[in-house]
């Protein structure tokens, strides 16, 4: 209604439901995906910086984007926890997690492990300083505590992250050579691609989530958007591999970055299994004297943590192709997933059509060029002043060209004739109008003499118009 006042109860209801309720399913899906992307973006950016630092020290990077993303993810998970939310628990937990991340990254260096096994703790502490990047990754993840700041954070990440990427790339290239440079390029290249894909997707998702929170829109459109942006990310990946060769990035060195996480995983498994192995060894030592003569238990030797792994860049060709095949399978799986999602979308659209709420169709607008040409404008009608009707219409046409003499919409023919007569003089128009009405409306035959006078009256009118 145009009038009246807003219903106070309705306003109160609006305030109560601001922000609007979020559907559980949609929020859960988002709360899983966005932090994962944020962690990957943070970890990838740090991985480029770390690789440059290692390259400057003349060493190959030992931690890749995946490991650092896991560290950052741990930081995010801690920051968004629902229990132990007190300030003291927060401080202690954050510091402990950062120390743990840093220590794990530090421990990934074989030289550190060799020094530790050899009892040279002080020397070990001076080694693999960039390993502390792990701690930084955890703390970086810690900054994503507030979901409300996701959009701002991701915006800043892109705004400053992309230009920032140039610096480690430049340092890495200028400060290293040979194998170290190749190792740097491999890690930095993969990290950069991962950063681009995840940071852009996270930004889009964070913005759409912000819009959804403020407007309460349905999540249906976001699903289509996610598919589109996922397609672009997939395109980046598919283009990235051949682009690496074009840019002079040694493809074999890419495997170093990809095999790195596997190596880290194995090391972690080894570390986790060491206590078990030690326990089994101790048990066998205890059981040994109790066994009858002749039965011996083979000695269990602890795994060696001080072995230096072979240079990954010299990985056999078969490993390289195996990794490549894995990538291909992964991408095919993604394409399959995308097609499956499209199929689901179509099913949903079909279901919506059945429900009758929404109809979707691909409709090409008609091509302007294929439309039939507009018919040519009809030629201007010329009235024959030889007949009384034609003479009056011709006179009106002549008068219409002069604004002050043209017949007005509200004017009767008689009033018009009077006005024209007063303006230019002569009774011609009045007589033409009378003859017109007699012929057209009364159906009265006009005398021949009157018919002959009609063109002369038009001529006279023209003359008066020109002179008047």
């Amino acid at each position, binding site marked *: *209604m*145009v*009038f*009246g*006042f*807003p219903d106070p109860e309705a306003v109160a*209801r*609006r305030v109560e*439901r601001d922000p609007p309720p979020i559907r559980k399913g949609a929020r859960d899906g988002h709360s899983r995906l966005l932090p994962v992307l944020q962690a990957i973006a943070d970890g990838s950016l740090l991985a480029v910086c770390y690789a440059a630092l290692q390259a400057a020290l003349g060493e190959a990077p030992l931690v890749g984007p995946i490991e650092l993303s896991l560290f950052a993810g741990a930081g995010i998970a801690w920051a968004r926890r629902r229990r132990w939310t007190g300030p003291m628990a927060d401080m202690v937990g954050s510091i402990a997690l950062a120390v743990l991340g840093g220590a794990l990254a530090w421990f990934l260096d074989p030289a550190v492990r060799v020094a530790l096994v050899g009892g040279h703790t002080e020397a070990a502490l001076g080694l693999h300083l960039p390993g502390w990047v792990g701690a930084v990754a955890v703390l970086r993840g810690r900054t994503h505590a507030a979901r409300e700041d996701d959009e701002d954070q991701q915006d800043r990440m*892109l705004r400053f992250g*992309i*230009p920032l*990427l*140039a610096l480690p*790339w*430049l340092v890495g*290239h*200028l400060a290293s050579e040979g194998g170290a440079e190749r190792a740097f*390029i491999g890690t*930095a*290249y993969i990290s*950069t*691609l991962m950063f*681009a894909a995840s940071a*852009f997707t996270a*930004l*889009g*998702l*964070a*913005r*759409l989530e912000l*819009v959804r929170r403020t*407007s*309460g*829109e*349905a999540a249906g*459109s*976001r699903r*289509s*958007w996610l598919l*589109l*942006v996922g397609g*672009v990310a997939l395109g980046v990946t598919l283009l990235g591999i051949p*682009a690496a060769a074009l*840019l*002079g*990035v040694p493809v074999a060195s890419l495997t170093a970055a990809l095999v790195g996480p596997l190596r880290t995983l194995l090391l972690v498994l080894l570390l986790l299994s060491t206590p078990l192995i030690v326990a089994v060894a101790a048990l066998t030592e205890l059981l040994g004297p109790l066994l009858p003569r002749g039965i011996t238990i083979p000695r269990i030797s602890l795994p060696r943590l001080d072995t230096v792994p072979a240079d990954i860049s010299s990985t056999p060709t078969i490993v390289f192709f195996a990794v490549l095949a894995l990538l291909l399978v992964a991408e095919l799986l993604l394409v399959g997933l995308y097609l499956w999602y499209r199929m689901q979308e179509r099913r949903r659209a079909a279901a919506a059509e059945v429900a*009758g*709420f*929404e*109809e*979707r*169709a*691909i*409709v090409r*607008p008609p091509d302007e060029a294929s439309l039939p040409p507009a018919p040519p404008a009809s030629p201007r009608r010329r009235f024959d002043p030889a007949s009384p009707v034609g003479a009056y219409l011709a006179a009106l046409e002549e008068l219409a060209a002069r604004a002050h003499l043209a017949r007005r919409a509200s004017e009767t023919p008689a009033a018009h004739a009077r006005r024209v007569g007063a303006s230019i003089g002569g009774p011609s128009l009045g007589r033409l109008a009378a003859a017109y*009405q007699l012929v057209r*409306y*009364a*159906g009265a035959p006009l005398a021949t003499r009157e018919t002959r006078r009609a063109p002369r009256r038009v001529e006279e009118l023209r003359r008066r118009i020109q002179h008047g």
Partner: protein
Amino acid sequence: MTGWLALAAALVATGAAANAPGLVVVAAIAAGYATLTRLWTRFGARNVSYERRLGASRAVAGDSVALDITVWNRKPLPLPWIAVDDLLTEGLTVRERPDLDHADERQHRRLLRNTWALTWFERVIRHFHLDDVRRGAYELGPARLRIRDLFGRDAADDEVEGRTTLTVVPRSVPVTQVPTDRAPLGERRAPSSLVADPALFSGVRPFQAGDGLRRVHWRATARLGAPVSRRYEPARGRTVVIAVDVQTLDDVAHWEMAYDDDAFETLCVVAASLARRYLDDGASVGIAAASFTGTPQRIAWLAPRAGMGQVARVGELLARIGPVSSMPFGALLAWLARRLPSGATVVALSARDARVVAPVLRRLGRSGFAVEAIGVASTWSGDALGFPVHAAHLTPDWQHPDGLRLS
């Protein structure tokens, strides 16, 4: 975006100078970001059509009206996120969107938000329903169209100016009069009359001796070749004007803008029903109310006319008036006295105590107008007021009325 492209160019140059191909990768990312976002900024809002179509432009209170929203991306560039905020006048209930947000920039407006992701050349039609529409004049539009790019950034926006109006007229119900032996409210149209109304032209007839020259229809005479005279409708015995008292509370001044919504809606239903009844009986019916109707005029006025076409006009006017009074009811009646011919019937329709309007009506009666009063309040009583008084009762209520009983 120019900054991003400049950055990309600088990185390529640096990469070439330092023989660092990695910088080219970063440059490609920066350039890709800039190009992708520019695509939607530049072309996003182009060739997007938005259309809003109502199933009917007029409806009766309580009806359900279909509303179709169509958005069409008429270009090959897909739109990852397009939102349209359509402004609706407050009071409309959309079945598919029970809760509509208030519009921040316009008072008494709600937002019908729709969001889509459109592929190339995709057209989407959403079928909404406006349920149980209330009496009023509603406006739909304009609409604000916003487009976001692939990264969720605001890329383009546009305003679709087209507006659609929906007029919801009050229901009109059969009127029964109790007791039935009283004189009817309206007066039947006279089949013939000594006095013809020159404003009611009804055709021509052959010229008769004694017809004045002014009465001759010269154009028709010229066309027919025989003299013909104009023929007029006989003058009505009574012109009925329903004066609606939009003030619904007794002890509140007209400028206080306080009202009883139920009483006002009841007044509208009663007025529409009475108007239909009078018109059925052949009377000329007009409506007057001291209310704004979306124009600067302070009085909603419909001149009396006969014929069933007047029913629609009465409904239209009643749809547009609101419960906020623009002047005292007495002032409206005084204005009517200057406007109407002597002898016209003024039917005062009010929800207030009869004594509030009685003095003005008595004055009108003394001025030569036939005056009647109809009250919709349950306490209405017109004893010894000096003019005929009726009490109107809608059964069962104004929201779902079946009939109007006058007693």
